[in-house]
């Protein structure tokens, strides 16, 4: 942490939120308890509930999208916000309470060490919420696929608890997948020679609301993400995107 003070890196926590009015207050409370200096922005993806009001009530800056864009569009808005306001580090955290702010420091530590992306992985130590067996099988498959395509093993490629350096903020603000973006963006980052590290975190089951990937969509998810990951691996390198 001394390092952070030395360089005085401006840090932003991006919370994409859709119908998270019930979960956000706890997350805000927990974030306030973290002894680090950072700002928060909630990207309200056109929620029909009180998500926006809850943010205002807690004095948290909120970007309310006039049309629902889905998780990718919301997160990208966060990266655009980070770029616009000159942040050095952006951390993505789900608004549903799965990601524990107590691990924020650990996730950020890898960025201080010079990595471009730091992913909070629930599978390194295997503690806490591990999600269902079928989901783990799907995640394992993506780990294998990413290893095959990039040579690097990522234990939790679907984790949405991740920090990015300034270079990746710029890259992702310019282009970001529409839905199910996590595995694809890992490959894009690795393909562009950015360095990724993982840290062990403990995740919790979501508090309320539903996951974006339901049973009926599982097959679609697998096919779409597999294709997206392969396309990202053979995509043209994004040299001008990093300017």
């Amino acid at each position, binding site marked *: 942490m001394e390092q952070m003070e030395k360089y005085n890196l401006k840090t932003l926590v991006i919370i994409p939120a859709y119908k998270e009015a019930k979960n956000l207050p706890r997350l805000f409370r927990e974030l306030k308890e973290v002894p680090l200096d950072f700002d928060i922005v909630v990207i309200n993806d056109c929620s029909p509930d009180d998500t926006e009001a809850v943010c205002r009530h807690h004095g948290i*800056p909120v*970007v309310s*999208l*006039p049309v629902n864009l889905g998780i990718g569009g919301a997160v990208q*808005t966060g990266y655009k916000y980070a770029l*616009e306001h000159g942040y050095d580090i952006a951390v993505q955290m789900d608004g549903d309470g799965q990601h524990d702010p107590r691990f924020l420091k650990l996730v950020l530590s890898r960025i201080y060490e010079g990595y471009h992306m730091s992913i909070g992985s629930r599978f390194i130590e295997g503690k806490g919420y591990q999600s269902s067996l079928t989901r783990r099988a799907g995640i394992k498959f993506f780990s294998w696929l990413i290893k095959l395509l990039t040579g690097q093993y990522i234990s939790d490629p679907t984790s949405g608890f991740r920090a990015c350096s300034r270079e990746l903020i710029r890259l992702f603000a310019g282009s970001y997948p529409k839905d199910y973006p996590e595995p694809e963006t890992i490959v894009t980052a690795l393909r562009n020679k950015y360095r990724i590290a993982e840290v062990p975190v403990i995740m919790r089951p979501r508090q309320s609301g539903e996951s974006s990937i339901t049973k009926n969509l599982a097959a679609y998810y697998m096919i779409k993400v597999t294709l997206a990951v392969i396309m990202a691996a053979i995509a043209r390198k994004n040299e001008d995107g990093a300017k």
Partner: protein
Amino acid sequence: MNGMGEMSSVLRIILIIGSLIFFVFIMNMVRTKKLELKYALTWILTSFSFVLLSIFPEILFFIAALMHIELPVNALYLCVISLLLLIVFTLSVAVSRQALRIKTLVQEIGLIKETLERMKKEG
């Protein structure tokens, strides 16, 4: 050349009437600005070629003979389906482009709204 020869008169009349109605309909859509000329162009060309084909079915016979298709009517189907595939694909490309533009606009509006509120608060 039979198959077309037998039913040619009926098919031709249907084609001529159909494509003429279609042509008028398209032109009217463009006139009332409901259809952009850019997209109407494809359809105008399509309906025009239908009129042409129904008046001169020999073109179809020629295509059928060229591609070793026994029934000229099948050559007609082939042409129509290929054309439709082309048009639908073009539309998919157009939709993708629109989606990206809309996404960028939505994000921009969200960010601008936030800035505006911040400025209002700060006075």
